[in-house]
């Protein structure tokens, strides 16, 4: 049992993830392997107050991604809890 803590929506990921992906991930869609939630990245819950960015599913709070900037590079963990569909130009 839990109550939502302070989090932001997925739109705040546009800046940090533009360093990782060539496409705009906030236009991406995610399908949750854990709870079946399906929807836009903008709906994700983003926790920004910790030592790194933590992004969770709005349906089940499972870890979607972690991003940490270290002196040796960006560490990106995609969590493995669902599929992300990224928009691309044909």
């Amino acid at each position: 049992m839990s109550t939502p803590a302070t989090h932001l929506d997925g739109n705040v990921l546009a800046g940090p993830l533009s360093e990782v992906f060539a496409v705009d991930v906030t236009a991406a869609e995610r399908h949750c392997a854990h709870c079946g939630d399906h929807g836009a990245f903008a709906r994700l819950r983003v926790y920004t107050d910790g030592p790194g960015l933590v992004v969770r599913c709005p349906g089940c709070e499972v870890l979607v991604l972690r991003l940490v900037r270290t002196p040796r590079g960006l560490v990106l963990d995609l969590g493995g809890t669902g599929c992300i569909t990224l928009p691309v130009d044909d």
Partner: protein
Amino acid sequence: MNLITRGFHGRRGGDPTRIPPGQYETHDFPVLTVGPTPRVDTDTWTFTITTETGARHTWTWEQLLALPQESPHTDIHCVTRWSKLDTDWTGVSLDTLLEDVETTAEYALAHSHGGYTTDLPLQDLTDGQAWIAHTFDGHPLDPEHGGPARLLVPHLYFWKSAKWISGLTLLDEDEPGFWEQAGYHDYGDPWREQRYRGD
């Protein structure tokens, strides 16, 4: 706005014998979250130490409170660069909890309600260096700060002081926890600025 390197802003400097390098003193108690705050009922709360052989030692909330209580007065240092001096806690020393635990393990992985983990050498949890803390500043620990009980290991960066602690697994080999997997330091000594792996 750079969300990844964003820190808390406050007074720089302070007593260099008490504020580690790269830290500033805050008088607030910032809340760091990696997810929703678990609401853990003390009626069903347990703390379990599992040894490397699989032996389990479990305490209920009542049993924890019946053990000898200690009141550490200490400074805490968060890797997001704030340090808070002269904090007062009450809890049970890990020395007390480990007294009857037979182990030759060298590492511990702390587990929390909500799925958080962090790893530490077992020797950093003994000799009066670590507690299961349930009271802060004379009041029951707020859920936002890890209540009903959190690990308190003040000589390491505060991410090692796992909130909402549910147990420790004792291990022969080190196993990286939540932030350690994502590039943070396995040990995390604030006086040596061990923030990231390789520091």
